[in-house]
C-alpha cells in the first residue's frame, strides 16, 4: 500500500473521478472532474483506467509526497511541476521517488490542473463515486495540509503512450470561447431581444465562478413571462437567468432543480473549456439543434 501525504493543498484541491450521474432525483449533483478529458488523459498516462480518482487542483499550489516510489502525471491548467525541487515534465508520466516532494506551481493559463497517481486515489465511494462535491456535502472533504490518503489500491492497466493528444489537452486560451448550445427549455419565457443578445453578444466570464456555476456578464436578458417558474430539473451546462438578467451556466455541482428559467443549454463537449476559463474570458454562444425533432 502506498500513501500520499499532503503538505500544502493550495486554494482548493479535491479528489475527483467521473462523478455520479443518474442520482439527480435524490438531489445529488453529477459532480466529478470539471474537465473530464484532462483527468482521463492524466489517468491514461499513468496506466490507470479512466474512472480512477485523481486530484483536481484549482490554481495550483498542491504539495505532496509518497511513502513509496510512484508514477504521476499532471494535466489540465499548465503549470510548473517539480520533484524534490527539480522541474519535471507536465503532461507526461513522471516517477516520484519515495519521500520526495511533488510540487505544483501556479498555472499560466486556465484554472484546474489534474494529478493522476498510478493506482488512483483510494477513498470510500458514495453512490458509486469517489468524487468530492463540497457544496452538496458529498464525498471527501477538500484536501488540507496533514491529510494522508491511500493510493494504488485500484486496478492497473499498462501505461499507454502519450503523445500529441496531451498537448491539445493543455488548451489554447487564445481568443474567445465558442460554446455550442441548444435553445430552451424556457427560451419562450424571454423577450425576442434576449434570444438575439444571447446568440450574438460577446459575453465575459466573471470571478463569480465555482463548481456550482459560472456567472456571465453581458447585456441584460429580459423576460417576456414574469410569473414564477415552478422548480424543474436542470442539467450541467444549463444557462439559467435569475432576476438580474445576467446568466449563470451550471457546473458539475449545480443544484439539481431550479426555479429560474433556463434559456439554453451548453453541449457537454464544450463545458470543460468554460469551467477552465479564467474570469474575463470572452465567449460567444452558437445555437445547435437538439438530437431529436
Amino acid at each position, binding site marked *: 500500500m502506498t500513501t500520499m501525504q499532503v503538505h500544502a493543498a493550495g486554494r482548493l484541491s479535491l479528489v475527483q473521478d467521473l462523478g455520479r450521474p443518474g442520482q439527480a432525483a435524490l438531489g445529488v449533483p453529477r459532480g466529478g472532474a470539471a474537465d473530464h478529458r484532462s483527468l482521463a488523459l492524466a489517468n491514461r498516462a499513468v496506466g490507470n483506467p479512466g474512472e480512477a480518482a485523481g486530484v483536481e487542483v484549482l490554481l495550483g499550489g498542491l504539495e505532496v509526497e509518497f511513502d513509496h516510489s510512484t508514477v504521476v502525471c499532471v494535466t489540465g491548467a499548465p503549470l510548473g511541476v517539480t520533484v524534490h525541487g527539480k522541474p519535471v515534465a507536465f503532461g507526461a508520466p513522471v516517477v516520484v521517488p519515495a519521500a520526495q516532494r511533488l510540487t505544483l506551481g501556479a498555472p499560466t493559463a486556465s484554472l484546474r490542473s489534474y494529478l493522476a497517481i498510478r493506482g488512483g486515489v483510494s477513498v470510500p465511494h458514495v453512490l458509486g463515486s469517489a468524487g468530492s462535491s463540497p457544496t452538496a456535502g458529498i464525498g471527501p472533504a477538500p484536501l488540507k495540509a496533514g491529510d494522508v490518503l491511500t493510493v494504488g489500491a485500484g486496478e492497473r492497466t499498462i501505461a499507454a503512450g502519450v503523445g500529441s493528444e496531451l498537448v491539445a489537452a493543455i488548451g489554447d486560451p487564445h481568443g474567445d470561447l465558442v460554446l455550442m448550445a441548444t435553445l430552451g427549455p424556457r427560451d419562450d419565457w424571454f423577450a425576442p431581444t434576449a434570444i438575439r443578445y444571447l446568440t450574438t453578444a460577446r459575453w465575459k466570464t466573471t470571478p463569480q465562478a465555482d463548481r456550482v456555476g459560472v456567472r456571465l456578464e453581458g447585456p441584460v436578458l429580459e423576460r417576456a413571462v414574469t410569473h414564477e417558474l415552478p422548480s424543474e430539473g436542470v442539467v450541467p*451546462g444549463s444557462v439559467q437567468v435569475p432576476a438580474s438578467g445576467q446568466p449563470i451556466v451550471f457546473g458539475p455541482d449545480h443544484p439539481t432543480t431550479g426555479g429560474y428559467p433556463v434559456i439554453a443549454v451548453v453541449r457537454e463537449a464544450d463545458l470543460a473549456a468554460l469551467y477552465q476559463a479564467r474570469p474575463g474570458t470572452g465567449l460567444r454562444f452558437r445555437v445547435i439543434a437538439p438530437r431529436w425533432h
Partner: protein
Amino acid sequence: MILLPCGENGVLVELDDGTERRRLDSALRHAAVPGITEGLIIEQVPATRTVLLRTDNPQAVVDALREVDIHSLPEPDEGSAENVTIPVSYDGEDLAEVAALLGITPAEVVERHTGQVWTVEFSGFAPGFGYLLGEHHNLSVPRRSSPRTRIPPGSVGLAGDFSGVYPKASPGGWQLIGRTEVAMWDPDRQEPALLAPGKRVRFVSVDAPVGADVEAEGTR
C-alpha cells in the same frame, strides 16, 4: 404533455398538473411506458409539473412519449410505496408564527402535520431534501420574508404546500416547526437518501402522550 429540449440529449416533459406529472414519473420509473426500454433513460428528475429525462437516444424517448396517452397510464401504486415514519420534536422557532398565519393554535399545527400521510414529490435543493406534499393541503404558509443564514440539520419546515426536512446545515427560508434526529442523508447507508421520490411519510410527535404509536422506522 409538452416536450421541451434540454441540451442535446435531454427532454423536459411538461405536464398539465402535479397529478399528471406523478402518473408519468411513476410509469417511467416502473417501466410501464411502451417503447421506453430498460436503460434508455439515464437520469429522471421529477419536479413540480415536469419530468426531466436524460438519455443517449432522445429520439427514441420522444417517439415513445408522443404515443403516450397520459390518462391511460396506471395510477401510481400507493399501496406498494415504502413508508417512512419520522419522529419530530415540535419546538420549531416558527411554530407560533405558522399557527398565527393559519389562524389556529400551535397544537393544531402539530395535529395537522402528524395527522396526514405526506408523499415525497421530488428532491432538490440538497442531497436528501425531499419536497413532501400532504393529503389535506391545510398547512400552506409562505416562506419567511427573510431567509435564515443557518438552519440546523433535522429541522422540519413548511413552505407553500410543502413540508421538508433539512438534511444538513444550510441557509433556508422555510418556516421551522420542529426537528428530528433521523438522518435524511447518510452516505454510509445502503440508500443514503431516506426520502426518495414516491416514498410516503408520516410524522409523529415525540412529545406524544405515553402509549401513542411511535415507531422509529427509518432510523436504521
